[in-house]
């Protein structure tokens, strides 16, 4: 636009030159033809110089864009690979379905990779299942999930117990030491994770549950019940696990574990969080539907609620029922 304006100014100057003795706008004396010519020359120089300058800037910008594109490509490739690695340590939905015919895993990281993960192990017929939400999302969150798997595996190997609270205590110590969290005051990193851990005892048809800032939801034909997790989080020097639940399994009961991503999703008419109460109602009202359908319900509700809002956090939901 300014080019057009500058050319316009130059052409006006040429016009003015013809009526040189009437012009007083420029402040140049009417009889100073040399000054008039200098002014025209100056404007032409300005145009040439600016054109050249913009050309240089354009070339520089093109080079920088190419560099950015190359970086972005490399970065995306790296993220895609990281995503495969992250998913490789989680039990796949197929694997999960082999344990529970009626089940689903709904995993939607905020970015390509995220801080939510699922952990599953089996020992002497007992099934151990953990839903984990690490601090943050994206790359740091994902790195923390890898560490969480490593620490949880180590704790599991060294803790022959079917009490989830005992395993979580061991896990907390392992995680705390692994990250040198005692050094936080001297500039070390401060991070942690929320977890819900279920241990299924098939011999007694019993589920034991303990969690930190994560609740377990169990629905049956009549109602939905929420089993509370503890207030602390993994990564604390001292972890109090006062709440630990034993739940008798009845055929048809459905169990759901969530990270807080779905509850915290902003949206709706007033751009508020979905909150756990809404999700609880949905699960209660759709109890008679198949797990696949319930997953679809949750997806639809989440998508509708979210609308055009960005995804707030990583989302992981696990549901299964005992046939």
């Amino acid at each position, binding site marked *: 636009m*300014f080019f057009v304006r500058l050319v316009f*100014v130059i052409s006006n100057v040429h016009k003015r030159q013809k009526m040189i003795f009437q012009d007083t706008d420029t*402040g140049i004396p009417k009889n100073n033809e040399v000054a008039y010519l200098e002014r025209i020359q100056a*404007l032409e120089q300005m145009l040439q110089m*600016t054109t050249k300058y913009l050309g240089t800037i354009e070339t520089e910008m093109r080079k920088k864009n190419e560099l950015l594109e190359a970086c972005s490509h490399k970065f995306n490739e790296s993220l895609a690979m990281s995503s495969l690695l992250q998913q490789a340590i989680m039990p796949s939905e197929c694997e999960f379905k082999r344990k529970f015919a009626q089940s689903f895993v709904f995993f939607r990281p905020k970015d390509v990779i995220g801080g939510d993960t699922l952990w599953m192990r089996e020992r002497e017929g007992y099934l151990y299942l953990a839903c984990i939400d690490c601090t943050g999302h994206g790359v740091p969150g994902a790195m923390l999930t890898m560490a969480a798997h490593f620490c949880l595996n180590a704790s599991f190997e060294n803790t022959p117990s079917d009490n989830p609270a005992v395993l979580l205590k061991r896990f907390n110590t392992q995680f705390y030491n692994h990250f040198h969290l005692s050094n936080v005051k001297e500039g070390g990193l401060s991070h942690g994770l929320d977890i819900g851990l279920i241990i299924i005892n098939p011999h007694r048809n019993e589920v034991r549950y303990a969690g930190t800032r994560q609740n377990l939801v169990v629905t049956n034909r009549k109602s939905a019940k929420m089993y509370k997790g503890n207030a602390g989080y993994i990564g604390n020097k001292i972890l109090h696990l006062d709440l630990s639940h034993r739940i008798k399994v009845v055929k048809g009961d459905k169990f759901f574990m969530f990270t807080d991503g779905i509850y915290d999703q902003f949206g709706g008419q007033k751009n508020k969080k979905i909150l756990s109460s809404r999700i609880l109602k949905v699960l209660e009202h759709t109890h008679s539907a198949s797990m696949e359908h319930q997953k679809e319900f949750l997806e639809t509700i989440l998508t509708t609620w979210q609308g055009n809002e960005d995804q707030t956090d990583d989302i992981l939901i696990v549901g299964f029922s005992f046939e």
Partner: protein
Amino acid sequence: MSTIRNEEIPDLLAVSRNMHFNIYRDYRNGFIICESCSEYAPIDDFKETFESMVPVILEHGIGKFIFDKRAMRAFHQPTMEWYFVIWKRKLLEIGLNTHRKILPEEAWFQKCVEAGRATILAENPDFRIDLLDIKYFDSISDCIRN
């Protein structure tokens, strides 16, 4: 109290005036203002005006130069090069390194100034622009305050 382009500036003293520039100074705050009042100043007139400010700056120990270019619509690159490399260096030698400037509103003019400055700096790699404190503002009051 003097009025520059509708701004009332207290304690201003008119130093000189010609067809292209009005020069003011304020001995209390130690700044000198050069207000352009024509669209273009030929190189000889420009140099003469700017040279005439040097003894005033020296005499009153002025530490800030304010250049109001709002009336200008054309600049001559050799003039600008002289102003930038020779005149500003001279001012730096006598202890003035604070330059405040006001450009015309027109984006095309501002882009031309940017291009001119980039050309001068590219052609004069020895020129120590980092020794100068140059800032752009929209009004004389802002130039005085900052």
